[in-house]
Structures are given as C-alpha cells and as structure tokens.
C-alpha cells in the first residue's frame, strides 16, 4: 500500500528524518515508535504530503505521492493529527461533514444521501453521534479527538495516518479506538500510527518501526522490537519485559531509579502468635508467588496469615468467608496472603538457615490426616475430606530472579516430600509413603534486596537454604502435631 524508500527531509535547514525505508501492506496496523524528537511526526508529515521530501520516494498504491492532487490524496489517505482546533463554534456534525470535501465535485458541491450516510456511519463508529449537534468547544479533549477521527473516517480512506491517537483519551476509549482500528484493518484499511505507549503498540500493531535520531533502529513484529536491549538503546532507560497476562504479546515495565534501601530480613521476631492464627507483617512489600486462599499468584504483599479453622469447616463458600475473616482481623486483602489449616497454631514450626550470601526463613504447619502419595493412581477428589494439610512459607532474604522463584518452589516441594518420608507418613489409601497432602499450600516471598540469586536449585546457596529450612520446619511441625495427638 505504501512504500517509503530512503526518505530524508525536515523543516528548513537540517534533516530531521534521514534515510528511512519501510513498506506497509494493505490491512496492516503499522506502529511507529521512538523517543521525543526522533522524527516520528516529521516522518508522518512527509507521508501525508504536508512537507516536501528532501530525497527519497513515497509510493502510495504504487504511484509517487507528488503525482496525487490534494483531493485525490484525501480520498486515499486520511490523517488524524495530535491536536486540531478551530476558533469558530462548528458543530460536531459540521466538522465531520468536512471529511466529505474531497468526495464532492461539481460547481454546487451538492450533499448527497451517500455523503449523509457515510457521515452518520463515522459518527456512530466513533461514538460521537450522541453529541452530533453540540459545538466542538463544548466537548472535552478526548471527545474532540474522536470527532476528528470521525472526520477522517468520513473521508472513506484506504490509509489512515494517526499521530498518537490515544493521547487525550481515557483508558476505555484508548481500548475502544484501537479495537475499532484493528477491526477496520480486518476490513482492508491500512493504518500507520505513531505511538507513545510501547505496551499499547505491542498489543495492537502487526509490525512496529522503532526510530532513533531520525533513522530506523529496528523494524519488525512486536516480539522483535520489544526487547529490553532495543528499548534501552533507543529510550536510554531501563525496562523489564514480561508477557501480557492474556495475550501472547510482550509488555514493558519501567524500572524506577533504585533508591537507597536498607536491607531487611524476615525472621522469627516478626511472627505474631494468636490463638486462631499466626501472621508475619513485613515492613516492606515482598515479591510473592503463592497458592494461598487469599492473594494467590504473583503479587507484592506485606502480610502473611495462616489461619486455624475447625475440622468441620464448611468448604462451600470458603473464599468469601475467608475474605471476611481476614478483613475482620484488620488485613488489607490486596496486601495479604492468607492460608487455612485445621492444624493447631501451637504446632507451627520455623527455621532460619543462612547459606553464603543469602538467608531463608521458613514457617510450616503440618497436618497429615490427608496424606497422599502422588505417584499412585486414584480418582480425583476424595469423597470425604479429612482435616490435615501442610502450609509452607518460605521467606528469602535476597534478590530473586523469576527462575529462582520457580526452582525455589521445586526445591521446597522436594524438601517437604523428604520430610514426610523421613517421618514415615503413609498414604492410608495405598499404604505407601506419602509425598504431601491433598490440600498443601506454599508461598515464596522475597525481599528483593541484598545479593542477587539467579537460581534456587538444590546446590545453589538459595536452594540449599530453602531445602534445609523447609525440611526442618516441616519435620518439627510434624513432630509437634504427633506429640500433641499422642495419647
């Protein structure tokens, strides 16, 4: 649809865009990214024919752009600039109707039913029909932006150029606008858009052009552009890449400049003992991966609660009941990981292990009424729940990679299984040594301060500390439970 070859140009003296080449296919959503002053808008103005090329060629549908008359070009290409304003109080519909200018011909430029239909359609698509008869000056910035989008759509273009279209829009309209563009590209519209927001661009664009100092840095699919080293190179700032939770597109998070941090260690001094629960309140938020009843998954949490419930606890609405309970006790649900067990709280055990440059503090409550050998064949879901579960907390006082979290979980699970084996806990159904219980829960929390730990395998400092802390705390808790239950 558009082929740009070795484009150079700018305003007055000095080139702003230098030797940019790319091509955009029909129906593509093509994003242009780059820091302020990298020449994105200048490039856009060159493509839209607003400023003359110093050198290079732009072919629009195979024909050089300078061979188009303004009207011809406007029938093929529409532009939504960053800001448009008028000193006169045009109504929304009058403004959108101007989009039909290029389609009107003849001496009287008569307004046809077709024009009316296109204008109404554009108003509808952009959600501006409701204020079609209001003056532009009565609208908010975001509403105005949508009106000018409607104007561009009224041109019935094959190519739509947008300069930071989501700039003035609130969150839901950003999404609506981009969803609309995406849908229209499926119908054959070609969209070239400047983006400020890397993540939005990555989510929606088929391909991206990353600009630096007026030249192309990289062109490619989102996955090729959204690399930490590219972004660091172009924007000169630190970012971290993560996957989008729902869509297979990379996302970037800014990393704020690190402030001076006191090192923090989670130790037994922080445990608060209550009759029906124990808790640890951390002075800072810890990065946590957990399977708690409350606060499961990844998160930043500062409170950790292990709650004793009666063995006849009704499991039907446990999530709702648990939320109420934790809130009642004064825990902020967004900051809390909550677990539940039938084990008495005085049976909880903990262990702190220091290995090389890292220390691990583990807390466990172990009940084994439900012990299971995971290697045996069985039906999913036992008919009747017996009480007894193993809850393990692992606090790592170091800076962990995500890899270390996953390996840490593995190491902790191995340590737990070994503790059960050494204690001779049996799966009552199969009569073999149990590896855990059917309702075990675990969390790994890290202060993210101190020495960097990339791995937590069983022979790394972190792995060794986790393994021993978990093994010893589980063993001790099992022992305590056994002793209390012994006649």
């Amino acid at each position, binding site marked *: 649809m558009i082929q740009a070859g070795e484009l150079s140009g700018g305003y007055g003296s000095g080139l702003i865009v230098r030797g940019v080449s790319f091509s955009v296919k029909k129906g593509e959503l093509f994003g242009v990214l780059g820091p302020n002053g990298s020449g994105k808008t200048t490039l856009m103005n060159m493509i*839209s*024919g*607003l400023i003359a090329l110093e050198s290079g060629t732009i072919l629009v549908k195979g024909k050089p752009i300078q061979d188009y*008359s*303004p*009207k*011809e*070009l*406007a*029938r093929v290409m*529409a*532009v939504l*600039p960053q800001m*448009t*304003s*008028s*000193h*006169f*109080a*045009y*109504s929304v519909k*009058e*403004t959108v109707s*101007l*989009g039909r*200018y*290029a389609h*009107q011909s003849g001496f009287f*430029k008569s307004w046809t039913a077709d024009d009316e239909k296109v204008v109404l359609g554009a108003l509808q698509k952009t959600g501006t*029909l409701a204020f*079609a*008869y209001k*003056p532009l*000056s009565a609208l908010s910035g975001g509403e105005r932006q949508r009106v000018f989008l409607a*104007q*561009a759509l009224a*041109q019935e273009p094959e190519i739509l150029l947008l300069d930071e279209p989501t700039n003035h829009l609130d969150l839901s309209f950003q999404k609506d606008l981009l969803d609309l563009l995406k849908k229209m590209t499926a119908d054959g519209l070609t969209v070239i858009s400047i983006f400020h927001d890397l993540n939005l661009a990555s989510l929606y664009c088929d391909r991206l052009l990353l600009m630096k100092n007026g030249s192309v840095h990289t062109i490619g699919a989102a996955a090729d552009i959204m690399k930490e080293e590219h972004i660091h190179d172009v924007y000169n700032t630190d970012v971290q890449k993560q996957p989008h939770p729902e869509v297979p597109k990379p996302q970037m998070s800014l990393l704020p400049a690190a402030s001076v941090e006191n090192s923090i260690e989670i130790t037994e001094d922080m445990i608060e003992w209550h009759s029906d629960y124990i808790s640890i309140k951390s002075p800072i938020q810890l990065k946590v991966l957990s399977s708690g009843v409350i606060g499961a998954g990844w998160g930043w949490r500062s409170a950790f609660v292990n709650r004793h419930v009666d063995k006849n606890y009704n499991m039907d609405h446990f999530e709702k009941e648990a939320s109420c309970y934790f809130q009642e006790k004064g825990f902020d649900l967004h900051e809390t990981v909550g677990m539940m067990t039938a084990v008495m709280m005085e049976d909880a055990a903990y262990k702190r292990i220091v290995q090389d440059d890292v220390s691990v503090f583990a807390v466990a409550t172990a009940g084994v009424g439900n012990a299971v050998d995971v290697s045996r064949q069985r039906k999913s879901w036992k008919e009747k729940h017996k009480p007894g579960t193993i809850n393990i907390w692992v606090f790592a006082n170091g800076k962990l990679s995500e890899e270390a979290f996953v390996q840490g979980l593995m190491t902790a699970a191995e340590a737990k299984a070994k503790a059960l084996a050494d204690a001779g806990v049996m799966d009552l159904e199969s009569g073999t040594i149990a590896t855990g219980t059917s309702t075990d829960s675990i969390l790994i929390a890290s202060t993210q301060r101190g020495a960097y730990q990339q791995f937590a395998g069983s022979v790394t400092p972190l792995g060794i500390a986790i393994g021993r802390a978990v093994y010893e705390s589980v063993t001790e808790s099992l022992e305590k439970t056994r002793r209390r239950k012994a006649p």
Partner: protein
Amino acid sequence: MPKPFIQTFLLNKKGVYLLSFAFLLASFFLGVSVGTVMIPFRDIASIIAHHLFGTDFSHIDPSVDSIVWKIRFPRVVLAGLIGASLAIAGAAFQGLLRNPLADPYTLGVSSGASAGAVMVLFFNISIPVLGVFTLPVISVLTAILTIFCVLVFAQAIERSMKVETIILTGIIFSSFLGAFISLMIALTGEELRQIISWLLGSVSMRGWPYIQLMAPFFMVGTLLLLYMAPELNAMSFGEDQARHLGVNVQQKKMVVLIAGSVITGAAVAVSGTIGFVGLVIPHFVRILAGPDHRHVLPLSMISGAGFLILADLAARTIISPTELPIGVITSLIGAPVFAAILINKKRKGGVA
C-alpha cells in the same frame, strides 16, 4: 432523538435568511424615504417600478423622482454595496486567517487604497481621461498593488506562506503606508479637511457612476468568495488539516486573499475607510446562524448592506443638515456592540 433538533436547526437557518432579507429591505426603504424631504414608501415603490419596468408614475412629482432616483437611490445602493463588500471580505478573512478579530483591513489593503487616494488629493492629480474618477481608480489600483506587494513579500519570507506570515507582512505594510499618509497630511495646507473627510469615509454625492465603477469588482470578488465557502470551512481548522481534507491550500488561499482584497480595495476607493462593518457583522451572523461559511458569507453580505444603509441614514440625519462621516457612525455603533458581544460570550464561557 436528533430529528426534531435537525428540523429546528433548518428552520433557524431559513429564519435567519428571512430576517436578514427583511432587514435589508426595511433599511433600503428607510434609507430612501428619510431625509429633508420625506417620501412615502408607496411612491418609492412606484418610482422603482417605473425605472425598472416602465410602469406609469404620472401621479408622482418629477422633483421627487429626481431626488429618489438621482440622489438617494444611488447613495443607498452604494452604501449597500460597500456594506456587503466589507462584511463578506471580513467574514472570509476571519475564516482564512483563523482569527475572529481579523477584518478586511488586516492585510493593509485599506492603507494601500488610502495612500493612493491621499496622494491624488495631495498632489492634486487629475488624469484627463478619468476626470473625477481619478481618485477612485488610482485608489483601487494602489490597493491591488499593495496586496501583491504583501503576498510577494510574504512569499519571500516563507515559501509556504503561513497565515501568520501574511498577517505580519500586512501589519508591516499598513504601518509603513500609514506613516506615508501621515506625512502627506502633515505637509498639507488647505487640503487637510478634504483628506481627513475622505479618510473618515462617506458615500454622499457619488451617484451612479461610482456604482458602475465598483460593481465589476464587487461581482467578481463576492462570487469567488461565495464559491470558496467549503474551502474556508476546512481552512478554519488550520492549513494542515485543510490539506489533509483534500484542499489545495496554496491555491485557494490565494484566491480568497485576492478576491477579498480586491473588493475591499474597491470599497475603500469609492467611500474611504469605514471601520467595524467587517468585524461586527460576521460576528453577529455567526451567533445567529453558526460558523458554516456557506451561510456566513451570504448572510454577512445581506446584513452588512442593510447595516451600512442605516449607518449612512444616521450619518446624514442626526445633526442634519450637517453630515457626519459614516466611518464615525459605524465605529460609534460598532465598538460598543462588539464589546457587548465579547462580554456576553465571556460570561457564557464560550469561545469566539
């Protein structure tokens, strides 16, 4: 439910047209009727009918006929033409320059026309072929010359000729020519009064020949401007946006500038500088009919004509038999009205 809204909107537009036509007609008859000799509307109608269609008007005194047809009629028509010219040129320049405070004189056209006229008076130039028309003809020519100088100069500064550059160039030329006019006034002896009264503007004692002189400029200029209405709508959102919408901005901008300047120059040449018409009338029209140039331009013409006829009527009757300069009247009415509009707008919180 947008439909009833559309209907009232259309009705309003039609209503505004009716209103302005009624206003023009009323001003016209009043202008012809009122004076030292009062002439009834019925007689005016008969006289017009006679001159246009040759109907019988034997019941009318021939002296009344000559007052109406030879003196008042041309005066009223000329006032109407000038009012229409200034108002449409004002509306067009405001749209093109994206500035509601622009007027037909912004680009230095009036200074050009005035400089030519003052030169004729100062040097007592009389070109034999033109006779009494020496002044208006030279004035139109200097006005057109000025526009071209402004445009060439603006292009020399910046090839794409952004409106900001044009406005600045206009201001430079206005100031320069203004100084030139002041110089001639300062050096003038007994001609001073004549120059000043020309500068303040008047439509008296011009007669049909002046109308004939002005008519061609008026016709060509207004038709061109009316035809440019959709482009003006697009350009009032900015030149870049107009370009995106498919307007050949450079070309259309030239057409509007030249057409507007030519009719302004012609108006100044025959009547002197008459202020505020080109500023107030388009504003009023926009309040009543919205900013769409396809309506603003014709409505401004109609209302501007009516307004200047009434202003001229006031100028010659207020302290009759002495005539006040019409430019004084328009400014006396225009400035307070404009102030009132602005205050009103500010209160409503709207933008002009």
